C-alpha cells in the first residue's frame, strides 16, 4: 500500500513540481491514463450532421477493458442497425463485425480502420485505438495556449515511422486543470499541413473521480460535416467478463 502511495506521489510530483514543467510525453501519458481506465461501460448517442443538413442518430452501448485494449460496440438504435456490433482487440489492430440480419461475422483487415463508423466523422481507428497517442506518435510540448479562458498544454504529436496510423500528426490542447484534451486537430497522412478533422470535447464531469468529457464533436474540415457524440451513461472500473470480447460475445 505504501509503495503504491509513493509511486502515485512520485508521478504527481514529476508532473506538477513547481518550476519543473512537465514534458510532452509526461503529459500524453497522463492523458492516455485518463482516457483509458481499467474498464468502462457507456451508453452513447451519436448524431451525424450530414453535408446536406440531414441528421442521423445512433444509440449504442460500448464496453472496454484492459485500458482500452479490448473494445466492443453494440448498436441499439436505429432499428436498421439494431444488434450490429463491432469487436476491436489489440487496440483495434484486430476488428470483427457482426451483421445480425445474416448472422455473419466478418474479420476486417487494418485498412478498415480508416472507414467511417456508420458514416460518421469518427473512424474505427478514432474509436478503438486506445493507446495510440503513446504508441504511435512522438510528442513535443509547444507553447501553452488559452481556450475559452482555460489554460492548456499544447502538444504536437508526430507519427512514428513504420506505424500504420491514418494521420501524419495531431495537435492536442489539454486542460492543465485535469488533463482532459479539449481540442484535437488531425492532419492528413500524406500532406501534414492539411487539417482533416477537429475534435472538441466539452461538458466535463467528474465520474467516479475521473474527469469525463460528456460531449464530443468531430468536425470534418474536408466534407463539411460533423458528428456529435454524447455519453448518456458511463461507469468506470466495473467487472466485465473477458467472454464478452469474443466472437460469442459479439453475437449475443
Amino acid at each position, binding site marked *: 500500500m505504501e509503495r503504491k502511495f509513493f509511486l502515485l506521489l512520485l508521478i504527481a510530483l514529476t508532473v506538477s513540481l513547481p518550476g519543473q514543467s512537465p514534458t510532452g510525453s509526461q503529459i500524453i501519458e497522463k492523458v492516455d491514463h485518463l482516457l483509458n481506465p481499467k474498464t468502462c461501460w457507456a451508453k452513447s448517442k451519436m448524431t*451525424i450532421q*450530414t*453535408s*446536406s443538413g*440531414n441528421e*442521423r*442518430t445512433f444509440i449504442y452501448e460500448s464496453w472496454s477493458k484492459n485500458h482500452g485494449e479490448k473494445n466492443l460496440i453494440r448498436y441499439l438504435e*436505429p*432499428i*436498421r442497425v*439494431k444488434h450490429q456490433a463491432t469487436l476491436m482487440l489489440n487496440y483495434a*489492430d*484486430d476488428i470483427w463485425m457482426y*451483421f445480425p*440480419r*445474416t*448472422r*455473419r461475422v*466478418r*474479420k*476486417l*483487415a*487494418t*485498412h*478498415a480502420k*480508416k*472507414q*467511417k463508423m456508420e*458514416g460518421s466523422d469518427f473512424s474505427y481507428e478514432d474509436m478503438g485505438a486506445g493507446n495510440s497517442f503513446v504508441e504511435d506518435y512522438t510528442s513535443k510540448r509547444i507553447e501553452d495556449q488559452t481556450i475559452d479562458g482555460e489554460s492548456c498544454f499544447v502538444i504536437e504529436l508526430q507519427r512514428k515511422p513504420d506505424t*500504420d496510423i*491514418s494521420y501524419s500528426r495531431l495537435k492536442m490542447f489539454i486542460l492543465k486543470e485535469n488533463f482532459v484534451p479539449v481540442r484535437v486537430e488531425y492532419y492528413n*497522412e*500524406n500532406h501534414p499541413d492539411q487539417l482533416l478533422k477537429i475534435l472538441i470535447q466539452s461538458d466535463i464531469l467528474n465520474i467516479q473521480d475521473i474527469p469525463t468529457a460528456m460531449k464530443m464533436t468531430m468536425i470534418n474540415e474536408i*466534407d463539411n*460535416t460533423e458528428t456529435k457524440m454524447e455519453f448518456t451513461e458511463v461507469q468506470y472500473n466495473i467487472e466485465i467478463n*473477458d*467472454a464478452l*470480447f*469474443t*466472437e*460469442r460475445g459479439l453475437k*449475443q
Partner: protein
Amino acid sequence: MKKVGLWIQTSLLWTTSLFSQSLDLFGYFESQFMAALVNSEILQMQSNKIRLNFESDYNLVHFGANINALTYHGKTDWAIPDYLPENVVEEIPVALHSYYTITFQDEWILDNAYIRLAFDKWDLTLGKQQISLGSGYAWNPTDLFNQKDLFDPTYEQSGHNAVRFDIPFASRVNCMFLYEPDDDWSRSSKLVSIKTGLGRFDYTLMAIEKGWTIHDYTAFSGFDFQKILDTRRMLGGSLVGELFRWGVWLEGGYNRMKNSDNFYEITAGMNYTFDFQTYFIIEYYHNSMGQTRKIDYTLNDWMRYLASEQKALNRDQLYLLIQHPISDLTDLGISAVGAGDGSIALVPTLHSTPFENGELLAYANLYLGPENAMFNRNLGNGGLIRLRVYF
C-alpha cells in the same frame, strides 16, 4: 425423429409464452421492382415483403423468430427456355417447355424460430436458424446450406431447422456441432467445425455430411423432374486475415460424393479501403464440377445452376467490386463477374440511406457475353430498385 420435432415445437411454444411480456418486435417492409429486356420486350415483376422479427431474452435463454410475407406481381412465370442458348433448348421437346418454368408464388413463412440457451461454457441453439459458413464474399465453398446471389451477395439467407452446439474453449477457439434433421439419419446433415485465431488470421476447419438432392432435367418422374439422391461429404476449411494491410481470405472444400463424381471448390479473395475511402474487393472461384468450355454446357448444367443446385456453370469465375461513398449517405459501386468462357456481367450499384430507417438499393445487370456463354445477352439485361423501411 418425430419426437425431436415435437420437442422443438413444445420448447418454442413454452418459450413464446415465457417471453410474452418482454417480446421485442421489429422488422422491415421491402418493395422491389425488377425489369428485364428479353427479345425486345420489357418484362416487369414487383414484389413486396414484410419481415417481422420477434426477440426476447430471459436469463440464459434467448428466443428469436422471423416471419416473412411476400407477394409477387407482374410477370411471375418465367419460361427458362426463353433465356437458354439455342443448342440447349433443342434438347427440350416443345411439348414439355411449360415444365421448364420458374414461378414466383406469394408466400407466408416462418423463416426462423429458435431458442438459444447460453450457459457458461457452451451455447445450445434449437429450431429454425440461419447458418452462415465460410469467409468468402461472393462464394462460400464450405457453405452447403445456402447459395448467394452474385448480384446481391449480402442478402439475408433462409433459416434451417437444426440443433447447434457452440463450445468456446478459449478467447479465439470455438467448436461447433450442428445437426439438421431430414427424413432419416443418413439424409440428415451433420457438421463439426473448429475455429481458432493465430496472429492476424482466423482459421476454420470443418467436416460436413449432407443428403444432397439434384434433379435430372432431361427425365421425368410423373409430373416432376427425376430426383437424384446423393450424399455429400465435405472436408474443408477457411482462413481470413491480413497481408501487407490487405484483407485476404481463402476457403475451400473437397466433396466426396456417394453416387456421383467427387469434386472440389476453392475461393480466394482480397479487399482494401484506400485513403480516399474507395473500397475494393477481388475474389476468384474455382469449382471442378463446372465445365471449361461454353459448348459443353448441357441442359442439366444450366437448370441445376439456375435452380441453385450447383454453384457454377463454368469452372472458373472472378468477382470484382469497387465502391465509393459519393456523399455521406450514398455509395456508388460497380461489380463485375467474369466466367472462364470469356463472358462477363456488369452490375453498377447505388446504395443510399435517404432517411433514418430507410435504405434504397438500385442496380442494373448487364450481360456482355456471347451466345451460349454463362453471362450471355439472352439472359436479359435489366435492373432492380429496392426500397426498404425498417420499423
